[in-house]
């Protein structure tokens, strides 16, 4: 064991420590359940500081994993737990933490049981962080599985799912993917006991075995991404969730699938595998179009958000499948802004939903007319979401699309078409919310967001704008 409390292990452990503190937090009527939120927010902020520190330590232009930590777990059979980080995974961790931080501020005044919400959220965050830091197949698998339990609890308790049966299906579907992954892990371990992820990618295997193992690994990752026809379970769950923290958690799940492809995709694909990759690409593009078209006619904003998230994840997946180094770099930067935008938009839409309920109106149309602060923020995040030059999405999507278009024009154009449909959908929802003709002057005036929340949201706006100007702006000398 090299060092029991190295930086990376601390980053993984901290959310779990926060979880214990959250369990112990004393909350009563006097504190209005704010203690547990403060614990959650404090944990995430402390971890963000540590992540920032890691950005300063590592060489952001060097390839490969850095700050590697090795822990010997078992001597016979020899199993070592290895942690390591590169710019891509560090960006993902930072983005997930920021997304959680934003979502936590969105549920601060939620009347639901805050203690269990925070406990499971921190547990999920810890597992996600572990997944991005895992550099060996065992710890990768453990974190890949571990996040399902808190997620299931979060959705079940706070998701407000209309059809509980879809939650069971969703869980079973993901569990099935995880079991298939487990079989693949055992088989890989039988071939070679060295379990570093970087070695697994280049593992020499028999041809038949190769197909089976890679097939199993890919199916398990695909089970996390809403690819047609398996999008149904995820859409049924994701579009039903109203709680922003749970929504963010649910919509981080596909990221684990995409990330799995980043870490596992073999350096040299077998010939037949290339054929399957082509089929996967075709299905991915069809799914994008399919979901974007449905989002256009679906009036539920949560479904639109789900569609937006799905289309972007699939675009990232297509980028990963192209296996260009620069693209991977760009996916990292793009995804950083993407997760922050999704989280911020979700918090804003939740705010609108609550205002609508308070006013007792059936639709929120015209609600932004009398709430200038909310209107500014919501408009900014929607415009950033559709890809205007307000965040790193713009520049990095440009490079990503350039690569997809030069790889296959037709496929690239369908991706662009899906993005246009989605952008139209999101802009349409913004339009309806700003439609002054629909605003009923007789109604009680909608309450705008508080100056404190507005100031915090401006900080998010600042982060996004800075990510557009220079993706790694927070690293000195970058």
């Amino acid at each position, binding site marked *: 064991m090299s060092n029991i409390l190295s930086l990376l292990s601390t980053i993984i452990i901290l959310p779990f420590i926060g979880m214990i503190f959250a369990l112990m937090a004393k909350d009563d009527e006097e504190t209005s359940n704010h203690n547990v939120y403060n614990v959650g927010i404090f944990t995430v902020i402390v971890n963000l500081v540590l992540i920032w520190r890691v950005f300063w330590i590592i060489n952001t232009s060097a390839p490969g994993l850095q700050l590697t930590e090795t822990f010997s777990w078992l001597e016979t059979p020899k199993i070592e737990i290895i942690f390591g980080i590169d710019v891509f995974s560090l960006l993902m961790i930072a983005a997930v933490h920021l997304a959680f931080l934003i979502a936590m501020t969105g549920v601060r005044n939620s009347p639901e049981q805050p203690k269990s919400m925070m406990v499971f959220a921190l547990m999920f965050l810890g597992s996600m962080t572990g997944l991005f830091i895992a550099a060996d197949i065992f710890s990768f698998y453990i974190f890949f599985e571990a996040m399902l339990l808190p997620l299931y609890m979060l959705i079940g308790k706070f998701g407000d799912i209309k059809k509980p049966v879809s939650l069971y299906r969703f869980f079973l579907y993901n569990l099935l993917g995880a079991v298939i992954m487990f079989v693949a892990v055992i088989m890989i371990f039988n071939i070679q006991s060295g379990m570093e992820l970087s070695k697994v990618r280049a593992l020499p295997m028999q041809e038949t075995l190769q197909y089976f193992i890679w097939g199993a690994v890919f199916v398990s990752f695909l089970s996390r991404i809403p690819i047609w026809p398996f999008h149904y379970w995820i859409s049924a769950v994701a579009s039903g969730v109203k709680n922003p923290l749970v929504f963010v958690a649910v919509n981080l799940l596909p990221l684990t699938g995409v990330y799995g492809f980043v870490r596992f995709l073999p350096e040299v694909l077998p010939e037949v595998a290339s054929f399957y990759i082509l089929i996967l690409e075709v299905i991915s593009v069809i799914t994008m179009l399919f979901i974007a078209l*449905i989002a256009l*006619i679906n009036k539920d904003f949560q479904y639109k958000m789900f569609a937006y998230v799905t289309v972007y994840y699939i675009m990232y997946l297509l980028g990963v499948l192209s296996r260009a180094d620069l693209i991977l770099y760009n996916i990292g930067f793009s995804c950083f802004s993407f997760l922050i935008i999704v989280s911020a938009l979700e918090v804003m839409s939740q705010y609108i939903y609550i205002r609508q309920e308070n006013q007792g109106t059936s639709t929120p149309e015209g609600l932004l007319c009398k709430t200038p602060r909310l209107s500014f923020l919501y408009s900014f995040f929607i*415009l950033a979401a559709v890809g205007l030059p307000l965040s790193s999405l713009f520049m990095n999507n*440009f490079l990503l699309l350039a690569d997809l278009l030069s790889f296959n024009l037709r496929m690239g154009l369908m991706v*662009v078409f899906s993005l*246009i449909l989605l952008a139209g959908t999101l802009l349409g929802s913004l339009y309806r919310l700003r439609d002054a003709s629909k605003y009923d002057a007789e109604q009680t005036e909608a309450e705008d967001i508080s100056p404190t929340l507005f100031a915090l949201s401006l900080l998010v706006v600042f982060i996004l704008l800075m990510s557009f100007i220079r993706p790694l702006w927070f690293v000195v000398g970058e």
Partner: protein
Amino acid sequence: MIFSTFIYLIAAGLFVLMLPPIKYERTASLGIFVILAALFANYAAHALSGYSHTFVYPWIEYKDFLVTVDLSSNFYNYNFITPVFLVILLAAFSNIFYPFEGKRLRLAALMMLNLAAFILLICSQNTLQLLISSCALGVIGFYVVNDFEARQKYVYFNLLADMGMFTAFAILYGCLGTTSLADLARFKEADAYQNFVPLLLLFSVFIKSGLFLFQNMLLEWRNINFNRLALASFALVPITSLAILSKVSVVLQYSTLAGPLMLFFAVVSMFWGFFGALSQDNIRSKALYLNMMSFGFFFGLLSTVPGQIEDNYPFLLPAFYLINISLSLVNIAASNETEVSRMGGFIRTLKYSFLITLIIVFADIQILTNIIGPKNQYWVWTFLILQLLALAQIYREIYFTQIRADERVWALLHNSNIFSAAMMAAFAAWLIYKTPADFVRTGCVFGAFVLFMMIAPFRNFSSFYENEELQSGEWLNRIYENLLIAPIKILGRILWLTVDFLFIERTILSSLSHFTEISVTFAKRLQSYGWLSYLLWGVGGLGLMLWLVMNGGLGE
């Protein structure tokens, strides 16, 4: 120089934008106009002295991806920026006195940001700076166009155009491996998408310019006030598209289809604009159709003689802007009356306005006849004749013919603000003075214009004023709705109902559910204590043993 102007504009624009509403907006707008005028004086002094300075900031330096921010001062940039600067200066002056403007200060701030974004666009040396500045202009335009319906179309049309450009530039980057505009000349060597990329670019700029088939966005601006309408037409999106087209024109040269297509759209837009200007009753719609003609003319100029637009660009734009202003004067004078069918006989009260209008038309003729060359002569003459025919008809209906205005409008009819009108007249006179003149030719054309006004060859078009369908322009919306939007929505609904609901929910999931149910029932039955269960298990066990024995199983 251009760099410092850019920085001042951004700083002043953002500062003014963040100011809370104040009581003395008119005075503050005057202050902004003075700042803009001072900046222009400084800018013009440098431009005339031929001052040049290179400002290149290395923005993004990835491994194979370099993007710079260029804000260099050179002849090309001065040539393109000057007309828009002039238009914004005039708009800022109008903004002080325009009576129907509710948010004067905010509009002034938007004008400064608009100019800054346009400078960024013109100075672009790479496609990304071009895209970013185009998007910035798009967002500013969204706030300038302050009518809700107009904004909706503006957003969707701009989105389509920007995504088209984004895709075209992404393909170009994929082919050439660079975003530099100077390297676009290598597009021919890439030998791929030689027609697709140019057509995509053209499609995008046509949408932004509001040419024929894409005029919906432009025509919705009839609901915004004249000052904003003229600003949006001649300093925002349509002009952006022309600048972009000029920047990437090298790509179009390799396409066999781009030239003819551009010419076709230019011709159709010009004629469509002409008939629209004659048949629309709304004075703002008339102005917009006239603008559509102008944009068609610009595109035609670009397609017939590449490069021509750059040499003659500076004065054309302010001249067309002034035409809008000449109609705006009437609109202000008639207490915001918009229907030309309720005007007529205004010459009795609006003598000064009519005089200014004549000066503006003279300046317009002077500038247009001045650019006539051997290659573009038919094109310019066609446009000039159509424009003068339309203008003659419109002015005749407003200033002459019988009085049709209602009592209130007629009673309140007055010449618009003397300062504002004098400024426009002075500017038109300055344009006449600055343009190398063939006064005989200009005089003859002007005489023809007066003759057109007297005989009004297209006066029968005013019968279309009664046609509700034509006036509302809804027919075009319906075409879009039925041919483009509805099929997409229907497809989405069909996919949702058939694939998600019918296929996955009702077929696959139901089948799986039933299959599981049957399997569970079957397994339960098998494990019951009945004689059939014993028999089945016994036979099954024996069968398994037999199979293993036959396949060499069971040990040695």
